[in-house]
């Protein structure tokens, strides 16, 4: 209990709340603008967190992460273009409501549902993470290696169309993470006599290239944008009746539970959660035929679920060190930058910081509600910013961010190289998210792999030496079978079509 109180004390600094709100504002803006992603926002602003300390930097990044999920719904409702993929299900009923002249009401439902989902998952995180952490403390190096292998397998499997290509991408990430000085022996690896390679590649520099600069290359098309007239929106009535609140409650509760479950499973994310919940809400609704035509339950279900994922994805991250999706993988990188190694010992060694972050997540959702309530008009206007202005500004941010990590022009070149590499890989259908997971988990995976083999004198049987190890091996096999089965099913459906 003392740790929790100390955590609250550490959280209650004005700077934490300022950073939290700046993060929320940025997240909503990036979420609302189609073409910009929450991940891009986190990557672009990651260099800003280098000097902040763990609590403010996490408040800032989690603010972006949570608000991005809600922000995507604004453009989905107003212009039928989801700002983020998570908001695609929201669009199904959100846009028909706009056509009926009820866009303000739809945005209000999205905000209320997002806040409810976010708060629910933050509380689940608060109560469950310490319990999972207690279990995780029983694990040794072989178990830890198997956990990393499980995370990599699932994300490699679900990230693209091909499991083989996903695993190859994951291996590329693992290799990149191994470049530089070997932490166990002090020798150098693949530095090609170049002093700049000596300390390896910083995660932020790789991310800027892989996910931000490459986006600019992929978005070379001059897209026309749909303008939103806020004058018409302002005149609408957005009040919700008691019966409407009652109608939204069951799908919202069900979606919050679905969102949390989906969020805990690595490799699945807000998009899956929102569609699962949308379908579940439809099946329990008394107004099934209204779905897709502007049903408030549909919006409530989709938005509750995609925000319920946010806190849940942090459970495997903070307790086991396994990122559930790409955004959370970047958060893992941010934790490492601040000297916090995610995993079983995080709650014992940095319990105060952890509780400050988890309780902070509750406040993030409260402030998200307030910003959403009072600034929706502004966010709706932001959708109108032309891509011709945004694209160069993002690239300039990327260059400044890449340079600022080590104040090195060479690093900017590395980012440009990674952007080119990502572009080529995407053209060859290799997913880039497993590269990120490989990069983030690389050092931990290798360290635990080598330590285990050193302990066992080179015998691989150590990876099946305990019931937990066997459990993880079964999970890896089950994941592989499931991924293989779903890919086969996908292929069959494609060939049938």
């Amino acid at each position, binding site marked *: 209990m003392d740790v929790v109180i100390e955590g609250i004390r550490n959280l209650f600094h004005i700077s934490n709340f300022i950073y939290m709100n700046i993060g929320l504002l940025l997240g909503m803006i990036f979420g609302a603008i189609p073409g910009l992603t929450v991940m891009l926002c986190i990557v672009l602003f990651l260099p800003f967190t280098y000097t902040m300390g763990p609590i403010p930097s996490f408040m800032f990044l989690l603010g972006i992460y949570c608000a991005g999920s809600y922000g995507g719904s604004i453009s989905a409702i107003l212009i039928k273009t989801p700002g983020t993929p998570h908001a695609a299900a929201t669009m199904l009923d959100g846009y028909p409501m706009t056509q009926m002249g009820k866009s303000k009401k739809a945005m209000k439902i999205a905000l209320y549902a997002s806040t409810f989902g976010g708060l629910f998952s933050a509380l689940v995180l608060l109560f469950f993470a310490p319990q999972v952490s207690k279990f995780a403390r029983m694990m040794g190096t072989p178990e830890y290696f198997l956990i990393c292998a499980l995370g990599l397998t699932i994300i490699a499997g679900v990230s693209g169309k091909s499991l*083989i290509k996903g695993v190859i991408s994951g291996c590329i990430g693992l290799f990149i993470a191994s470049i530089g000085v070997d932490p166990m022996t002090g020798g*150098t690896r*693949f530095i090609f006599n170049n002093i700049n390679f000596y300390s390896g590649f910083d995660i932020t520099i790789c991310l800027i290239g892989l996910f931000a600069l490459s986006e600019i290359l992929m978005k070379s098309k001059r897209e026309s944008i749909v303008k939103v007239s806020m004058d018409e929106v302002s005149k609408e009535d957005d009040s919700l009746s008691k019966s409407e609140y009652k109608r939204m409650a069951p799908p919202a509760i069900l979606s919050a539970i679905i969102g949390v479950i989906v969020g805990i499973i690595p490799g699945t994310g807000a998009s899956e959660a929102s569609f699962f919940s949308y379908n579940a809400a439809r099946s329990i609704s008394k107004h099934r035929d209204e779905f897709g035509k502007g049903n408030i339950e549909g919006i409530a279900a989709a938005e509750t679920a995609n925000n319920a994922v946010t806190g849940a994805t942090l459970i495997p991250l903070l307790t086991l060190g396994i990122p559930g999706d790409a955004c959370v993988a970047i958060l893992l990188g941010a934790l490492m930058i601040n000297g916090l190694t995610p995993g079983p010992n995080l709650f014992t060694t940095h319990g105060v910081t952890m509780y400050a972050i988890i309780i902070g997540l509750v406040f993030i959702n409260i402030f998200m509600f307030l910003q959403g309530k009072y600034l929706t008009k502004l966010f709706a206007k932001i959708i109108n910013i032309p891509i011709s202005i945004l694209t160069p500004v993002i690239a300039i941010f990327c*260059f400044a961010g890449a*340079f600022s990590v080590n104040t090195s022009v060479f690093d900017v*070149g590395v980012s440009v190289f990674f952007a080119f590499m990502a572009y080529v890989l995407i053209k060859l259908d290799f997913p880039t998210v497993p590269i990120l997971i490989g990069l983030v988990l690389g050092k931990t995976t290798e360290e635990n792999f080598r330590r285990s083999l050193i302990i066992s004198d080179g015998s691989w049987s150590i990876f099946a030496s305990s019931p937990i190890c066997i459990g993880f091996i079964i999970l890896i096999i089950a994941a592989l079978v499931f991924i293989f089965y779903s890919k086969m099913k996908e292929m069959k459906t494609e060939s049938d079509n």
Partner: protein
Amino acid sequence: MKLIDSIDKWLDDTGEKLGKKTIRYNPDLIGAVLMFGLSVAFLLMMPSQIKLTETSTINARTFPRLVFMIVLVLSVLLFFKEIAKIVLKKGSASRELNLLVEVRALIIFVFIAMYYLLLEPIGFIASSIVFGICMTAYFRVRKWYYYAIVAACAIAVGLVFQYVLHVRLP
């Protein structure tokens, strides 16, 4: 204005011609060959790039070797899987590259490369302004204030990093 109109027309015509041109390729076959080549190259380079200081069998080469062996095996598997699909006529993973899309990406990449090369000689803010203006021109924007906004943003980003985050930009 007439000159800009004629340039616009020429660009539209060229774009239309390029838009019709496509290149077919098999991403699985190319990807498999590329990954096979890279894994073999890195495995061959390993003795010169990772010098061993310890005598243990579990050393600095163990993990990268395992990673490259996985890539090697999987790329062979991917190659033969695709060949089997072609032989059995089960629909190979053929893709189409639209020349217009690729030329556009190439132009942006050239801008980005130029921006990188100009960073040190002319400094961050100046190179950012040049890049910003080139990119805005790429989008064929005619409103002058768009160029001014982008240039102002370049200056603002530079100043924020320099004076707020205390980063000594080039």
